[in-house]
């Protein structure tokens, strides 16, 4: 029995038979048949032993929409060739900057690409034109040639460029996104086998097979008569990247949802707060290292805030000095109300839990707050001066170390960490304190993901709260970095469009 094929398929086979070797892309262009269809036909033919498919990886050079203008205008380092030549082939670095500015050329481009091309050489204080550089004045570099061809043709494969060093082109254009993109393409070539050539005459062409379903086909009812050809549904398509919320925002929202699902009330406190709420109310002595100018941002404007009601301030002050009515021995120093009035950028979201407790001292309460906190740090891959923290508290007559661990376990499990363990720790305002570790399956290790504890009575009693209060918090950037597999915290606030789009929402 002879195989039935469509008219289009027959056309495709005829072209393949007549050509020594032809690519899928060329086949599409010649026949106007859609690529999935062509590919499907050829895969079928290969399984019948009629054709052979060879695959090659090729680099395709795709110029950007701005490339033409940039190349015609002349690249910064090319224009600078002439500048250097006119200045006896050498300029001091200061003059380089001056000339670059006068000619409106990017200094970064001149240095980076000019040096990479070997056109310029940096000596101690000067930038010199190299021999290669002077040769380049009258002749386009390989990448410029390639780019010009690509601009005319829309795109070009590096290996089809004669007399152009594709390695050089790749080196120069791989990281120069404003000019072009290099994409790796898989190119498939089809050759007909002897068996194919023999089989071709015996194939039966079926008339009524259709590729494209049109509105007319549907309206007229013709769809009942035609046969819609199957596609090769395994064929890859270009990814359509959705616009989305910020990846860190996603984690913030998940965290909020977790607390809400556990019955917590959301609260807030100002980013600028008095030392009283950020430190003193948490029983942090006024000479504590964390209150140092080295670690905390103090405000010049507004420099001082107001203290809350006198009775509360008095209780806090007494607690610091001799323990007051908390049963503690206190810190044994003279508490200074001026220090407590100093405005700071809050160093933790615990300040908002404390503000809430002072207004709502009666149990039970379950409260959380997500927000930015600030540390006087320089910027590095590990540190930013501001980051997000989440803080939760439970004030309850049955709150205890045991229920703290239980609540944390439930919380972290809801956050997606099945295995949780606890280790004693030391924080100034909780007693006992515990650090939370979660098991990271991908890395096969325990990772510290937050601190917790029961507020010291020195914290809660002055606020009028007489039951144990469990508290815990964690930094969300750390979680985000683990989740999205990034090693540089700056990425989170860098607004790089590619990263924003590529970070997976379901991760």
């Amino acid at each position, binding site marked *: 029995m002879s195989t039935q094929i469509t008219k289009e398929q027959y056309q495709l086979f005829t072209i393949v038979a007549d050509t020594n070797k032809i690519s899928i892309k060329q086949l599409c262009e010649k026949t106007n048949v859609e690529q999935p269809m062509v590919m499907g036909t050829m895969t079928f033919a290969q399984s019948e032993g009629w054709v052979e498919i060879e695959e090659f990886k090729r680099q395709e050079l795709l110029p950007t929409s701005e490339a033409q203008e940039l190349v015609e205008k002349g690249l910064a380092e090319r224009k600078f060739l002439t500048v250097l030549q006119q200045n006896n082939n050498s300029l001091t670095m200061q003059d380089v900057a001056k000339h670059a500015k006068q000619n409106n050329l990017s200094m970064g481009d001149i240095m980076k690409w000019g040096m990479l091309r070997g056109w310029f050489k940096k000596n101690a204080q000067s930038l010199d034109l190299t021999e290669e550089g002077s040769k380049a004045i009258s002749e386009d570099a390989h990448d410029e040639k390639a780019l010009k061809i690509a601009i005319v043709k829309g795109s070009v494969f590096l290996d089809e460029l004669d007399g152009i060093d594709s390695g050089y082109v790749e080196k120069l254009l791989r990281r120069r996104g404003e000019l072009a993109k290099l994409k790796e393409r898989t190119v498939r070539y089809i050759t007909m086998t002897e068996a194919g050539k023999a089989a071709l005459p015996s194939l039966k062409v079926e008339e009524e097979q259709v590729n494209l379903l049109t509105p007319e086909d549907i309206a007229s009812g013709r769809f009942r008569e035609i046969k819609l050809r199957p596609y090769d549904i395994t064929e890859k398509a270009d990814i359509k990247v959705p616009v989305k919320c910020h990846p860190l925002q996603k984690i913030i*929202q998940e965290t909020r949802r977790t607390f809400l*699902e556990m019955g917590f009330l959301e609260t807030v406190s100002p980013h600028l707060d008095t030392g009283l709420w950020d430190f003193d109310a948490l029983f942090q002595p006024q000479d504590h290292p964390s209150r140092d100018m080295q670690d905390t941002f103090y405000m010049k404007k507004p420099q001082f805030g107001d203290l809350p009601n006198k009775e509360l301030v008095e209780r806090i002050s007494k607690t610091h000095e001799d323990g007051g009515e908390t049963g503690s021995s206190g810190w044994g120093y003279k508490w200074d109300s001026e220090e407590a009035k100093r405005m700071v950028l809050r160093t933790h979201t615990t300040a908002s839990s404390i503000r809430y407790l002072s207004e709502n001292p009666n149990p039970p309460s*379950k409260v959380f707050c997500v927000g930015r906190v600030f540390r*006087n740090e320089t910027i590095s891959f590990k540190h930013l*001066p501001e980051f997000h923290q989440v803080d939760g508290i439970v004030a309850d007559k049955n709150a205890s170390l045991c229920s703290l661990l239980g609540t944390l376990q439930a919380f972290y499990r809801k956050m997606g960490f099945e295995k949780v363990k606890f280790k*004693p720790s*030391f924080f100034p305002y909780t007693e006992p304190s515990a650090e939370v570790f979660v098991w990271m399956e991908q890395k096969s290790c325990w990772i510290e993901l937050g601190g917790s504890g029961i507020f010291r009575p020195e914290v809660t009693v002055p606020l009028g709260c007489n039951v144990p209060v469990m508290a815990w918090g964690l930094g969300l950037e750390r979680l985000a970095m683990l989740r999205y597999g990034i090693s540089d915290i700056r990425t989170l606030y860098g*607004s790089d469009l590619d990263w924003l*789009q590529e970070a997976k929402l379901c991760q």
Partner: protein
Amino acid sequence: MPVIGISVKQLSDLLGQPITSENLSDTLEYLGCDVDGMGKTIIYQCPKCSLFIEKQEHEEAPKRCTQCDYEEEKPFNSVDEEETIRLDLLPARPDLFDAGGLARTLKGYLGIEKGLAEFSLAPAQLEVFVSEELQKPDNYRPHIACAIVHMPEIDSKLLRTIMKLQENLHWGIGRDRKLASIGIYDLDTISGPITYKAVAPEELSFCPLGNANEKMTPKQILTEHTKGKAYAHLLEKSTKYPLLIDSKDQVLSLPPIINSEETRVKEGSKNLFIDVTGLTKTDVHKSLNTLVSSLVELGGSVELVKMVNGDKKTITPDLALRRIKINAERARKWLGINFTIPQFKELLEKMRFRVDGRFPNYEIYYPAFRTDIKHEVDIFEDLGIAYGYHNIKPKMVETMTVAQARPEELLSETARQVMVGLDCNEIMSLMLTTEANHFTKLQLTPGDDHAVIQNPKLVEHNIVRCHLMTGILESFAKNKRKPMPQKFFELGNVVHVGNDNHDTKSWEERRLCFAITGPKASYAEIRSYVDGILAELGWEGSYKVSTHPSFIEGRCAEVETKNGNIVLGEIHPQVIVNFGLTNPIALAEIPLAVLFK
């Protein structure tokens, strides 16, 4: 946080029984120590001043001495190596900074020795006279406490342990020698009594540690000696310097800078004189008590010293036991663990306390160095640790509560959904910025209503944002080479200064800012977005012509509402240039409160 390497062998010797690294590491973790791992530590010695320098196996051998600055072309010779367990120092527990202190705690936890570690004190013979002059405000370091410790003959390993402990206490309690600094001397090179007095910068001279052949005045030490220069800032306000000197005018040290070479503790020394001087009495005594108690664990015995301050005589170290009362019922509730009555005593003794009294009221006696104990809850924590966090069966608080999200956050969620639906990518920018980026580049004049930081480490962070435009425009700048058009939005808080109704003298508002850039970005486009958002959130507005220096005149509008004003328009080309951009930008900023019904 500094990391210490503790020799596993030394620890086993002190425990009196072998311990596997694994068991050691687990036990330390149960106690709350942060174990950094195991490794080999190699010890080098400076050929000139004999300072020991420890490096981890993978670190480079030193070529330069940190004490005397002596430098060689080739790395120093290693003198020893040992298997160590590496721990992060716990600032709250300086009594766990060394092998001695750790051994004391571990013995209890492992059941080798229980209850208080008590020892006898030999009566004071040596006197230290403290000069009145040091109590004056312009002559620094008013507080001093001293002790004598008789050790077994000190070998190089013990010497290293003591030096390391001294250094760690300088960090942990002394805040790098500022609040308290320790001097340790070979007692047999000193003739009592000793005087603690103030001297003029060039009144006398002595050989500082590491410079056996060169006498220097205090002034020279502070300006020429490596350690002197490093710590000179601690004495910069003083007109005279503190000095310890013996009855034969032999200088002991210039606290808190350096000791004298002649009184240096060497291998073979047996008797130690120790002083701690500092700014606060608490930290001085805490340092001395911690050091002396650890030396006892390392085989020492303590002799008291008489401090004479005019008519006032005191004996140091003050190692009298401290006492605190606890209630066992409250402990059960606080920890949520139903301890049996015998368990209380057993667990507390495991943590090296003495327990007196009867259930439920106990009196706990604890050593002087446990200054972290201020309240019965501190004892509760030790009870919890003794029980082991890993043995606790977690359970939940069962009280029913009702969740409630903040309305502003709910509205933000809706706004975020609308913006994503409008094909805008969300960005998050920092709240800290500069006047140049926040005002000048936007052709705005800084007013009085933005918050200014007093002490930023980076000049890039000296104000807090009061609008969201900078973050959006900077994001465009970062993506200027990516395909156009681009659409970004940010939802975030801005801060305004100058509202006396708030205790923080400032107020915040949540805003939504979004912008479009590309060759075709225009007022019409941003206007249709704003209309879309307002319609979606159930609000209609009337637009009025506005002048805003950041926008093109005639292409900027404002919508006034009682909760704030919406601004929208095409960004001024000069502003675009100021941010290093080339494409037109249309932007809108909406106070979220506007959208509240």
